[in-house]
């Protein structure tokens, strides 16, 4: 079992979509929301994912293809 910490950033048109619910239903991944701020114009959710490594990768690929930005929890790790 692997654990992954990620941040989802939702564009305005996807804020009302149940993306995280659909992710949990479509993939063998446990989602655990730790922090979130969702408003009319934008929303972000920080969550922990637990599951098989390959299944987590597949689920994140699906989320990204849905139009949600997926990042490591600590923001960009690359620096100037």
């Amino acid at each position, binding site marked *: 079992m692997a654990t992954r910490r990620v941040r989802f950033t939702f564009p305005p048109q996807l804020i009302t979509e149940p993306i995280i619910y659909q992710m949990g239903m479509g993939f063998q991944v446990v989602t655990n929301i730790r922090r979130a701020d969702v408003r009319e114009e934008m929303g972000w959710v920080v969550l922990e994912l637990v599951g098989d490594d390959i299944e987590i990768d597949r689920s994140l690929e699906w989320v990204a293809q849905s139009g949600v930005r997926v990042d*490591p929890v600590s923001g960009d790790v*690359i620096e100037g």
Partner: protein
Amino acid sequence: MAPTKFDRLETLRIRPVSFVLALKCKSCGREYAVEPLNVCDFCFGPLEVAYDYDAMARVVSKERIAAGPLSMWRYEDLLPVDYADAVDINAGFTPLLRCKNLGRKLGLDNLYIKNDSVNPSFSFKDRVVTVAATKAREFGFDTLACASTGNLACSVAAHAARAGMKAVVFIPADLEQGKVVGAAIYNPTLVAVDGSYDEVNRLCSEVADNYPWAFLNINVRPYYAEGSKTLGYEVAEQLGWQTPAHAVVPGASGSMFTKIWKGFHEFSSLGLIGNVKTQMHLTQPEGCSPIVEAYNSNTMHVRPVRPDTVAKSLAIGNPADGIFALKTIQESGGTATAVPEEEIVAGMQLLAETEGIFTETAGGVVISGLKHLVEQGRIKSDELTVAYITGNGLKTLEAVDHVVRPVHTLPNLEAFEEAMAATARS
């Protein structure tokens, strides 16, 4: 025998004391032991170093600082490591120059440049890396690692060489040659990643989870970031123990910007300077300005962007400290300014032609941003202003190669005078 000057210095530099209490979550305030950790297990917020300021105040004084080395290590009491064990290539205590020529061009009578491009590996990153490398060695790591668009890679490789540690640095495959060579010369393992910016970022996060390395911007980030506070301390000390009315700073992750502010406030709370009234101004290139966009939209939400800018050292699309940079702007009454891409090189040239300082593209962003702030009336002509120049122009030669227009001549006086005359006519 009467005490000598050196006896006095020895007394002032009593044995190093660490005033670190814990790591503390910047979001929820939970505390953690001093370990290689960067994220709160509860809310996943970023961690930072917490100090015992009361104990610190009993020891720190202007005299004690002045008796320290002519480097950023003169502020060791305010840092989370001891100088005695430092991985030190002599970072910091860089010049603060009064800039009358540039000031005249911009309409400022009281302008200073903090020239941090003259650090040992030619950028301010030496300040953060010296602290992180020292802490990493203290934790028992034998490898320093980082993901970088250049300056951090150079500094990590240099400090690892000095410490006798291994270095693994990840860079985007299309990085400027000056920065690639500037890192490679120290013989690190240089990993050039073929992929988009987001892919490089994702790979490095996964590598950090799977290898027992001190990843500078990940598991030792709380200590790393503290090094930037010295940019605040130094300016305050060099200005005669006061802070400027305005500080103009480049913004990438937003970390340095917040730490300069923190440095000013620590000095104030320790009684070394008066109240801080500095307005903090953040500048970003238009091709990567997520913090400025949030500021202009009057929101604390920083929406990630895909960087597309000539200022590669500022190309951080999802800034880890974006929200804290916005809070700093809010607290200080400062601003955030995006500089059009076509004005970046003009800023580099203006600084070079007026003050003899050759900065990289990030410095061009600062100078052009400063120009905008003056034109908008945000900075008045008589106000004490410091602009931070954090990287050296030799690293981004490609950005300015159009300035090379030599006068060609044959090796005799007649040809020379003819060529000069032709140049004067053109």
